[in-house]
């Protein structure tokens, strides 16, 4: 574009200008070739690594009987990467892809997946897929039947591996191992001394005392056989345990051979006894339940009530935090914005302390300081304020602590914004006879608000989802009475979501948690859309 030095570049000695550039403009074949060769080499090594990784991932997925679409995704992604980076075109993509891959897998996909979960009954007892649930039900149905065959057993061991020499009721002898099941003795390498079998296939016979020392390993030993397993009942006897429930893939029904009951899969993700709807089998599996979670959130009184409270408090908390920190930060910025104040640099540095300390830590420290019985605040004032235990005090406390966390940032912003207001505005106002308050109202505040509007919006959005302060200070407590989900008086939407999904009190309801998360998405996205017009960088896009 230019071969002459422009005013913007003359501070950069590395940039050639004028004649210099004109000379070098002519191709410099050697240097060009060298650079390109190096570049090609690095590119090929990196691409080779990516392809190697892709192959390894595919091998792993196939080896573990993974889903075909997993293999397809890896293969297609790898080929696409090859195409993009080997091709000459699509230059911007080459730079955008590394960050975008992480963004797609760990942010965009989880968002989409959250929407899906919100329409399912995913949660405690409904975590597995149907196939996994059937496998589990069949496994736990293995039990000792009254007429189960008994085996004579002799303990053997090979290093840490234990095994049993088993004699069946019809006097056939096997070696039983947890990995290979029953192996007929005739096929194995057997060592006998005085008619006693002392070693089989590397396993050596243990004395009763030696076996007793490893009793845990022997009690845990399960030798798989067709339709069941063999386990020890004493150190010399074993018994067969048999599977009692069977799934028939053709009919889709599950039969209990002990009781004769037949179970059919329900649309709620459970096997239900066809004759007795109250009789269901655990575990269940996850199924799509449509808008049920949303309906529950808005109609079930035990959910709707707490949810509405949490929602209102989320807005209140974000609003109070944002404007509280802004007011305090601005007050301090104005206070310290006077040359006659001595030691301003030190004060400013000290104001940053709450900002510089990790919040997870200081939130927990405030929690200790606000402890009703032995916290330092109550002790200092000599009172017993229930800072974190009473609903109203707890709300006050989280806002107060968040004020502590947030004001340094607003202080920094306000200080910078104050200093950017042209002083001739004030001089003109003084000439016109404006009072100090009038100058603040008519000049400082409006200009400051314009400059800090984007910051206020993003701070509001941040506090809307300020998990750390709420969760670490109060855990959302004190609890709301009569709530069907874990909900507290200081809970905001994000802590509410977390508690529904991960705190056992609510039965780990991922579906409901995701539903609250989806509603939060919608609220935040609406807020974002409204605020977009205020955010200045938008105007720079079209440069």
């Amino acid at each position, binding site marked *: 574009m230019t071969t002459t030095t422009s005013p913007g570049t003359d501070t950069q000695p590395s940039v050639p200008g004028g004649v210099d550039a004109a000379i070098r403009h002519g191709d410099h074949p050697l240097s060009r070739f060298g650079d390109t060769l190096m570049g090609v080499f690095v590119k090929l090594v990196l691409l080779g690594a990516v392809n190697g990784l892709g192959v390894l991932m595919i091998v792993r997925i196939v080896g573990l009987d993974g889903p075909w679409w997993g293999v397809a995704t890896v293969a297609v992604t790898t080929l696409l990467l090859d195409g993009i980076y080997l091709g000459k075109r699509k230059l911007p993509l080459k730079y955008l892809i590394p960050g975008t891959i992480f963004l797609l897998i760990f942010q965009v996909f989880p968002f989409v997946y959250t929407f899906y979960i919100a329409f399912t009954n995913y949660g405690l007892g409904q975590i597995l897929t149907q196939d996994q649930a059937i496998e589990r039900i069949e496994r736990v149905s293995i039990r000792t039947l009254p007429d189960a065959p008994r085996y004579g057993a002799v303990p053997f061991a090979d290093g840490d591996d234990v095994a049993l020499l088993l004699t069946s009721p019809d006097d056939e002898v096997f070696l039983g191992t947890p990995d290979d099941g029953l192996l007929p003795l005739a096929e194995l390498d057997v060592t006998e001394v005085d008619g006693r079998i002392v070693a089989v296939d590397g396993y050596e016979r243990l004395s009763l005392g030696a076996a007793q020392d490893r009793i845990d390993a022997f009690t845990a030993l399960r030798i798989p056989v067709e339709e069941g397993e063999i386990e020890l009942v004493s150190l010399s006897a074993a018994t067969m345990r048999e599977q009692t429930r069977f799934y028939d893939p053709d009919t889709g029904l599950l039969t209990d051979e002990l009781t004769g009951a037949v179970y059919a899969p329900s649309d709620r993700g459970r096997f239900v006894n066809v004759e007795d709807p109250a009789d269901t089998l655990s575990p269940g599996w996850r199924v799509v339940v449509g808008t049920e979670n949303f309906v529950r959130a808005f109609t079930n009184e035990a959910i709707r009530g707490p949810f509405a409270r949490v929602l209102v408090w989320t807005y209140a908390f974000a609003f109070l935090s944002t404007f509280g920190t802004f007011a305090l930060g601005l007050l301090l910025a104005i206070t*310290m914005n006077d040359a006659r104040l001595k030691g301003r640099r030190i004060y400013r540095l000290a104001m940053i302390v709450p900002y510089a300390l990790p919040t997870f830590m200081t939130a927990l420290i405030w929690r200790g300081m606000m402890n009703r019985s032995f916290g330092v605040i109550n002790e200092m004032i000599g009172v017993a304020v229930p800072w974190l235990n009473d609903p109203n005090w707890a709300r006050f406390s989280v806002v107060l602590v968040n004020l502590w966390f947030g004001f340094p940032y607003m202080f920094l912003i306000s200080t910078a914004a104050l200093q950017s207001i042209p002083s001739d505005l004030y001089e003109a106002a003084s000439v016109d006879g404006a009072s100090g308050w009038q100058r603040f109202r008519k000049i400082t505040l409006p200009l400051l608000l314009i*400059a800090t509007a984007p910051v206020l919006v993003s701070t509001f959005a941040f506090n809307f989802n300020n998990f750390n302060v709420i969760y670490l200070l109060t855990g959302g407590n004190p609890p709301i009475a009569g709530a069907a989900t874990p909900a507290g008086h200081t809970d905001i939407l994000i802590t509410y979501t977390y508690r529904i999904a991960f705190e056992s009190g609510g039965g780990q309801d991922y579906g409901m948690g995701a539903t609250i998360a989806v509603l939060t998405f919608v609220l935040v996205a609406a807020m974002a859309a409204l605020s977009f017009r205020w955010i200045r960088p938008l105007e720079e896009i079209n440069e």
Partner: protein
Amino acid sequence: MSTVPTRTGTPVTDATAPRGGEPPVWVRPVRWTQQVGWRYLVVAAALFFALFPAVWVISAAFNPTGSIAAQRLIPDPISTVNFEVLFETHFWRWFGNSMIVAGVTAVGSVFLCALAAYVYSRMRFHGRRTSLLALLLLQMLPQFLAIIAIFLLMIGLGRFFPEIGLNTLAGLIAIYLGGALGLNTWLMKGFFDTIPHDLDESAKIDGASHVQVFFTMILPLAAPILAVITLLSFIVAINDFIVQSVLLTDERQFTLAVGLYRFIAEDYGARWGPFTAGALLAGVPIVLLFLFLQRYLTSGLIQGAVKG
């Protein structure tokens, strides 16, 4: 940083000085109180508010009683017993884990972010405006809103790739890198925009490839913004509690946030002393980093980064 307001106007209050001649001497103390004196009162109150918790933690850390009750401001005697109790836990392991996670996340984020910012600043292509706006929207929707899906995703991934599944630092880092683009890309693009285009144009005429321009010209010139994004990413990663608490269940894989939380939440009364000792040590690297990068940070923050 062209958009940073740097013009230093006369301090606001200078304009409030009374006009006209010097007032009589006896008025001065009154006027001083009205105009300057009250500022010291406000500053004193603010200092107390800002510093009290920090001062109190330092005091608690060296208090031998170790319980939350019976703590005095100046411990007597000063003791390191809390640190000894703390070191019986996996504290240093947690500390190391946090440094690894936050360190790798910070460096990785800056790199991914710089790559994206470079094309947004220097190239015009189809979808540029849309994708920039999408990044801004994604920034408003924090990653951890999808915490349930992230948790289930990591269980699923962990079945095939336990190296990045639950209970791994690599998994944690991968998740954080998912949030690398976003507002940070905007910040960095804004800075790259201020580096004169003539520089890379003439370098290209000189035969430099776009990769060379990026690594040898843009990155060195953008050092201040790289420092800011490094610090911000580091802080975000070390402060995160929600993802770490869901992903990490093995005590040896804990980070500082999860480890110290579990440690203190089990017994607030008796473990207070050791906890404050841990909090004190945990704060050191961040405060150091903060002091080190402070001058970059103030200007970077004003461009709109968020924390608290």
